[in-house]
């Protein structure tokens, strides 16, 4: 069975529910619809209640600017309040324009550490019913609840926000012949691609993404993040340039426990997207950033590369620099660029990857977006501006400017040691083996 058939199989197993009908076979109950939480149609303050949301039509204007991002990871696994991330992002208020803010927290659900937590955005009750039908069909729902929020000035027209703690029965895994992670990936792609008005904001274990339209500090207050505690937090303030400013389009973009916040643009989006499609990833979120999330999932989880090595594929050394390397290294990086050529990220970017094992920050190869890092004790900080780090860590032991294309990696102790079978650690052997195996 190829990837595409697997996707379809999961989809059809969802029955009519995945096609816009609810469990009672009713179609499109407009009476239950809420205004969708995005920008109003240009020139109008009245939400269009007539049709299902058309995300591409929401923001036709392009506004130039710069995003801001931050990340903090406590390598000892000590948990910090989400307030740190709010304060750090609040200090970079002027980098965004209020059309998107978001956070990802890790270690925030200690009561369900092994369940996949789906953070869902629904435009209306129909989308919610359809999704719940789908989830109940494919998962054991351990617990579900609305995501707690509070009223905050600046946050309006929010979609319905729910979270579902999901487990997968062995029977389903045997039936589909998928790993639990691949099963979840297919489910996420299914929901995003086929259930109108429903989007999965995050789908990892013991983590969650909290995002929306507003300034990041407003979004953080809205989701009451100061009441969560996690060992890794990433944050993002958005200044949408090429894609709509809507709730699903705010950062971070997540798949399983990988979350990406991104400042910049991925000029190689088309190549990356086509490459990812071959591995069963559907790019449905109308943004360039999601390819980064899927590339990390592909390289770290499925191809078992180390973060350092995966980053060398995403922001690979120039050929002229490879020519200057010693023979063994030259062979390694030549193989890497040949195998992962379509994974190369072109264009200006700074990204922070949150993951179960820790955090990774990466710049493009010629440093076209800002990134500063600091360390204080067990904590590693990264941000677009040093002041955003100083806001939450006034006197770091060390602060530095990461080199272009050189990742900053924070590893949770116990969780972050790369196993020996991962390529990159063993040098050329791993990558060349991959070069021939794929």
């Amino acid at each position, binding site marked *: 069975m190829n990837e595409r058939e697997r996707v379809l199989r999961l989809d059809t197993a969802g029955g009519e529910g995945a096609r816009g009908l609810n469990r009672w076979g009713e179609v499109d109950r407009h009476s239950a619809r809420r205004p969708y939480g995005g920008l109003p149609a240009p020139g109008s303050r009245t939400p269009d209640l007539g049709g299902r949301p058309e995300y591409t039509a929401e923001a036709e204007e392009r506004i130039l600017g710069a995003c801001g991002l931050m990340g903090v990871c406590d390598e000892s696994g000590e948990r910090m309040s989400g*307030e740190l991330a*709010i*304060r750090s992002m*609040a*200090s*970079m*208020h*002027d980098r965004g324009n209020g059309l998107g803010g978001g956070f990802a927290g890790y270690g*925030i*659900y*200690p*009561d*369900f550490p092994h369940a996949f937590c789906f953070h869902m955005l629904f435009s209306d009750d129909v989308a919610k019913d359809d999704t719940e039908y789908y989830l109940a069909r494919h998962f054991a729902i*351990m*617990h579900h609840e609305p995501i*707690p*929020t*509070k*009223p*905050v*000035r*600046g946050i309006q027209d929010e979609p319905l926000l729910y979270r579902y703690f999901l487990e997968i029965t062995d029977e389903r895994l045997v039936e589909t012949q998928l790993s639990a992670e691949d099963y979840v990936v297919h489910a996420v792609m299914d929901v995003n691609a086929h259930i109108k008005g429903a989007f999965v904001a995050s789908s990892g274990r013991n983590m969650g993404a909290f995002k929306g339209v507003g300034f990041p*500090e*407003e979004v953080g*207050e809205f989701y*009451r993040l*100061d*009441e*969560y*505690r996690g060992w890794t937090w990433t944050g993002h303030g958005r200044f949408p340039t090429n894609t709509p400013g809507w709730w699903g389009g705010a950062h971070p973009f997540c798949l399983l426990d990988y979350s990406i916040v991104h400042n910049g643009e991925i000029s190689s989006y088309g190549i990356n997207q086509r490459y990812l499609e071959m591995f069963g990833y559907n790019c449905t979120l109308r943004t360039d950033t999601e390819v980064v999330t899927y590339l990390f999932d592909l390289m770290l989880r499925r191809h078992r590369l180390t973060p350092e090595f995966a980053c060398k594929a995403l922001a690979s050394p120039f050929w*002229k*620099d490879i020519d*200057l390397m010693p023979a063994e290294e030259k062979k390694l990086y030549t193989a890497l660029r040949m195998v992962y050529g379509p994974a190369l990220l072109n264009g200006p970017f700074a990204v922070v990857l949150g993951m179960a094992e820790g955090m990774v920050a990466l710049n493009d190869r*010629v*440093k076209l977006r*800002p990134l*500063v890092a600091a360390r204080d004790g067990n904590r590693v900080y990264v941000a677009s*501006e*040093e*002041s*955003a780090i*100083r*806001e939450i860590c006034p006197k770091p032991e060390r*602060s530095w*400017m990461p*080199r*272009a294309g050189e990742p900053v990696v924070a590893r949770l102790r116990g969780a972050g040691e790369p196993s020996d079978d991962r390529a990159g650690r063993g040098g050329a052997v791993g990558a060349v083996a991959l070069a021939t195996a794929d």
Partner: protein
Amino acid sequence: MMPSSEAARNVPTGPARKGPIGIEPGRINAGQPGTEKGRVSRVGETARIDARGVYYKTLNGQIREQIEGGATRVVLDNVNGQRYIGAAIAAQGVTIEVNGVPGNDLATFMDGPTVVVNENAQDGVGNTMNSGLVVVKGDAGDVLGYGMRGGRLYVRGDVGYRVGIHMKAYEDRRPVIVVGGRARDFLGEYMAGGEIILLGLGESELPLVGSYVGTGMHGGVIYLRGEVAGHQLGKEAGTAAPTDDEMARIEELTLDFCTRAGCDAAEALDRPFTKVFPYSHRPYGKLYAY
């Protein structure tokens, strides 16, 4: 399965707390637009402003107020991320001292004053600066001296990418950048005039300078304390040994830098310099002409 009571403390539960709308007052910081002024204490011609939590527009207004009110030394405490400090201030004999990390575009369009930063500075220091002096005691970020057309920038520590990009000189306006530490790629990119001196003092795992030095350079000069390999140079730049006149100029600027930034002058002049210069004044003159 319901969450255990202990775990329930880890996530918000129950109805939303009552409270002010918007960001919690306790979390407001300098990044949040606001009009609340910082506390000022004035002794003679010295003014101190507590910049903690003061929005950049308000803070810059306060700095101007003090200078217009006769202050010749303005000390800013608890600065964190406020942008445009010293922007477009045209005044002679005025010093602004910054304690904390100033935001982007420090001293942009500045015309005359001296700015001293006791810690690190961020990106865009001295953007389009006209005249005056900026001394950074720590590191400075990317695009230092972007389009700078006069005055001096002294950085004791390391600097980021694209330092001196589009720097230019006109008649007696000759901008100068002196860096005590190391520089990253694209030093002097599209440089049209002025002088950059890179010293690389002390020990570091970083190379003196990154790649693409002087890419697109068509004026001005870069002096490196040490050597640069051919593959590190941009296509438009070449190297030579400095002449005696040029060495005298290097010494003059380096000694001034060491005095103001607190570096060891003997170390700074202990080895030969390399001069990086543009091959052509119009490297792209024929780019669009066939």
